[in-house]
């Protein structure tokens, strides 16, 4: 018997107002640009001493994690699972650029130390004093999905009662100038953001249920059919679809979506970044909190697809 997976709380820092909920989201200008996220005052979350040495991606990750944990009334989770497409890119760039410009002899290790993607999860663990399970997924545009699947398996098996799931990606000038060359990034508002969820196998105080997650490199229709039949669902049971598509592109990205289904393209609120699908689940769970029902989150990058089902029906 698998335990169920509930979303208890969530928090976001993005191009939207920090920590605001989906009903206050406003679309971002959809144009070729660097779209930095809006940072909160970090003082309630991190001591000024610690914050001074911290890269923004670490401050944001700790802030959303602490906010979500506080909302779930949990001090120290059983596990911390992190998803990031490109990790601590700013510190990586500083160390790399210094090495290329100044040579290999007089390098300071401080930026290297914080360059690995797992710096995010380990800094959260150090801040919380959490010695539980700790892992980091870095799978390009599906880092969030990998981290969610890891979290779900920890809860379903009963190995953990609750999990802190945090995703983060960061925008830098160099990163922007490089990805802007690629056709799949061209002409977009390239952004950044951090999202945290507290997931639990206990429905107490839950916002919604994470019913299922599949990801496939080649067979979206086959996998979606399998997902629906496994859950005993048809399209009639889906109230809204949240897609990873750019505004107006859902029908071409997901030609198998019924045309009468309400669709929300959440990137109109957060721009494009690698772990933006976490922002999509933040938006989806926020909508279900207000309206109830069942949402399908549909993600796509090239030929890889992901489908996540969330429902306000907790049973």
């Amino acid at each position: 018997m698998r335990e169920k997976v509930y979303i208890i709380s969530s928090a976001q820092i993005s191009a939207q107002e920090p920590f605001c909920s989906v009903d206050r989201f406003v679309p971002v200008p959809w144009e070729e640009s660097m779209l930095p996220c809006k940072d909160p005052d970090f003082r309630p979350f991190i001591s000024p001493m610690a914050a001074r040495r911290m890269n923004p991606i670490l401050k944001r990750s700790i802030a959303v994690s602490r906010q979500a944990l506080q909302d779930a009334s949990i001090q120290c989770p059983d596990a911390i699972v992190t998803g990031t497409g490109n990790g601590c890119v700013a510190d990586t760039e500083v160390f790399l650029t210094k090495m290329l410009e100044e040579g290999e002899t007089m390098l300071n290790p401080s930026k290297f130390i914080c360059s690995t993607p797992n710096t995010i999860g380990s800094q959260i663990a150090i801040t919380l004093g959490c010695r539980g399970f700790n892992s980091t997924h870095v799978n390009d545009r599906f880092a969030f999905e990998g981290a969610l699947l890891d979290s779900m398996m920890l809860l379903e098996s009963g190995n953990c009662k609750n999990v802190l799931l945090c995703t983060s990606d960061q925008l830098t000038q160099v990163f922007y100038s490089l990805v802007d060359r690629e056709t799949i990034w061209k002409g977009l508002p390239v952004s950044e953001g951090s999202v945290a969820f507290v997931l639990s196998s206990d429905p107490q105080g839950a916002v919604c249920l994470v019913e299922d997650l599949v990801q496939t490199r080649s067979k979206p229709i086959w996998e979606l059919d399998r997902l629906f039949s496994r859950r005993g669902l048809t399209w009639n049971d889906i109230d809204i679809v949240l897609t990873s598509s750019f505004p107006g592109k859902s029908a071409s990205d997901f030609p198998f979506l019924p045309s009468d289904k309400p669709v929300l393209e959440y990137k109109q609120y957060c721009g494009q970044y690698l772990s933006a699908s976490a922002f999509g689940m933040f938006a989806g769970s926020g909508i279900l909190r207000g309206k109830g029902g069942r949402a399908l989150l549909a993600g796509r990058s090239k030929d890889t697809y992901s489908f996540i089902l969330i429902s306000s029906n907790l049973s």
Partner: protein
Amino acid sequence: MHGRIAITGAGIISALGTGLDETCRILMDEICPITPLRHLVSTHSNLPCGEVDFSDSQLYELCHEDKERPLSRSSLLGIIAARQAEQDAALQPGTRVALINGTTVGGMDITERNLENFLKSSDFDSLIPLHLDGVSTDAIADSLSVDVAYTDTLSTACSAAANALAFGAELIRSGRFDVVLAGGSECITRFHLNGFNSLMILDENLCRPFDASRKGLNLGEGAGFLVLETREHAMARGARVRAFLDGWGNSCDAFHQTASSPDGEGAYLAMVKALQVAGLKPSDIDYVNAHGTATENNDLSEGVALRRVFGSRMPLVSSTKSFTGHATSAAGALEAVISVLCLQRRFVPANLRFENRDPQLDFSPVVHTLKDMPLKHVLSNSFGFGGNDSSLVFSSSTL
């Protein structure tokens, strides 16, 4: 709950060579392949490293890849090891599998050679996406004959491959996949060679894990993959079982970004959890393939944790990083493949260059490779920056 996780295929490329037989022979004969840099171009060419002794161009030829297809060295190594594993397991082409890769540098070798070109000209644009860890995993997936329905990339620094194997085992336990290819792939880059060098944890001489005179690690590189499936699935298709992956444990030391705690708490918890999952007592473990990087701090912390787990009944211990160097994110995969070989071919590899016991560590590792050793259970440790500590338990196929 599904049954035990059988290991039905293995592939490896490292400083020890290519494939299971060559790897085994070098370990048996106690040959140390660590030398000053031969392939990576760096100011620090004097530093001893466990490089895979092929240039990128030779690796392309070895895996019959078109040189027009841009591939990072990590991906090239990964393709070679993952292909060996799928062939070793005799998986039918088209079998639905998940590929779980542990890596941190991804395509950093490409980026560090080309960053200035990227910024100056558009001629190199096709190389830019290779930087991402996930892209290096998908490149491996695209080169296999099995149907890779799902890929994921774990990046927990030097425990990444161990966590990839644990995640792969969970995918099978949860019933989501029947067959998983899991492991890790990582090449040496100037970026992390210089990172470790700036931390002053690289030994200018050959590394000496657990020795009182140890001065730091030697970097290594390589890739290793295991084919995991349930025992029932393996039996149904008549596959040969090389060993079982019976336990996995993960804990965060939550102490310091680069240093391990003096009481080895994270390492201790990871080992205890792995034993719990395997349903074993500490005294069931015959051999520990230690993380044993040969830094002052790691070996002391790991030694303290080992003593806490095993008490007065310390099993045989060695660090095969004295042969391979520290292959960072791939280390857990190389050592997983070596652990499987130890169980199957009944040997315990030496911890090379151990001479003097550290007064702070009240045990000595295995000094010479032991042959004809019937092993039942082997524990393999992988610890990473950030305190990401993981342990795996491998068991003999005869149990």
